[in-house]
């Protein structure tokens, strides 16, 4: 029975990894679409985030079934209960990525090509990486990687402050001819929230290994 249970726990890790991978792909696509002002990337990103709904339900059902059948304790219990918490964070990440995609579509619809700050692309890459790494830390029971994700949050926060500052300056100097600076600030804020969710996941990954919640 233990062998079957171990295989199921491994499978749960794979499912979460797949969901995190989808989230990262959605984030990458949507940010790329901003710079290109194309609709295709944004629409694909929205489809990807929609597929995360089913993934969330599947993972939740898997967790419930394992709780019922195995009545886990100790690390097994933490592995499953943290999966239930993390899947909610992943779902929120999907929602934020979908929100960014919606704004991107709106921008594309009026034909204006927004001047996307370079830092926004960097921020997006960091946030996507944090999501992937946080789940990898959980799947590999790797406390060091989880801690690295938590540390990366400061970098993302600094980027957000910088982007906000630059875009506010654009508005102040009346350089925002397309009127898109506020939208871009909102996008940056979404990315900053994605990074926060990744930090939550990393904290759960550490709890899963140590039993201590930071």
């Amino acid at each position, binding site marked *: *029975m*233990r062998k079957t*249970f171990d295989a199921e726990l491994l499978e749960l890790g794979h499912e979460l990894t797949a969901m995190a991978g989808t989230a990262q792909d959605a984030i990458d696509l949507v940010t790329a679409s901003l710079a290109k002002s194309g609709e295709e990337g944004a629409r694909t990103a929205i489809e990807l985030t929609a597929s995360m709904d089913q993934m969330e339900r599947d993972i939740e059902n898997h967790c419930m079934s394992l709780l019922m059948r195995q*009545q*886990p*304790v*100790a*690390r*097994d*219990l*933490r592995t499953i209960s943290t999966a239930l918490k993390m899947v909610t964070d992943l779902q929120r990440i999907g929602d934020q990525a979908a929100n960014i995609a919606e704004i991107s579509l709106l921008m594309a619809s009026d034909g204006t090509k927004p001047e996307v700050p370079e830092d926004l692309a960097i921020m997006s890459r960091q946030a996507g990486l944090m999501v992937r790494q946080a789940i990898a830390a959980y799947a590999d029971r790797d406390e060091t990687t989880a801690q690295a994700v938590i540390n990366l949050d400061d970098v993302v926060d600094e980027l957000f402050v910088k982007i906000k500052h630059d875009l506010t300056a654009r508005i102040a100097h009346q350089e925002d001819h397309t009127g898109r600076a506020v939208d871009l600030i909102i996008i940056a804020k979404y990315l900053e929230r994605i990074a926060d969710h990744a930090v939550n996941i990393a904290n759960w990954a550490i709890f899963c290994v*140590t*039993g*201590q919640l930071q």
Partner: protein
Amino acid sequence: MDAILKTEHLNLWYGDNHALKDVSLEMPGHQVTALIGPSGCGKSTFLKTLDRMNDLIPGVRIEGQVLYRGRNIFDPQVDVTWLRRHVGMVFQKPNPFPMSIYDNIAYGPRTHGVRGKKELDQIVEKSLRGAAIWDEVKDRLKKSALSLSGGQQQRICIARALAVEPDVLLMDEATSALDPISTSKIEDLIADLKKSYTIVIVTHNMQQATRVSDRCAFFLHGELVEAGETEQIFSVPRDKRTEDYITGRFG
């Protein structure tokens, strides 16, 4: 945390077999302490030692102390009957005496010199109520205890243990022979009884240990590997061997 029962460096040998190795454990009052571990780990030997049920077995040698309310139970001045009156035992298989329900419960008090019918009646009712079986048997107290179901028989045995007004109840896998409904009744009873008694149970059922115990002690190869609050043992055990056992990774 006042320990009612406490062992200090307890060692026990069955001939050459070192069955308990330097076990020091405190069992606090009004709490349920669960002894867990694989078969042959020494948990039942430990439980029996608390009631001096194995020190007369040929070849058994005991070192160290078992303190009941500060008194070493191996002290030559300690009378075993006195000890067992204060420290009662309920066994794995319900073992009512082949006599009426009433006489089963009255047996202990009679042995201790209670003779008056009125007093015995009161003790029988109080004990059966205490074991949550009064309503089920009050109209057939003269019937044989052997006519009852397994779960009822086990509660009769608990009532029998309660009749001598013990201080501590030891239970050796008291529900392992029972169906889930009877098990659930006994578990509720344990939760209720700990208000008045100090309880030590041996169980192979990990879920039962998590449900009913306040503290847990994990035994392996005669050693006490880890003891602590049940919630801690089953969420973040300190010793890897404990984690391996409770999550079924052993052997």
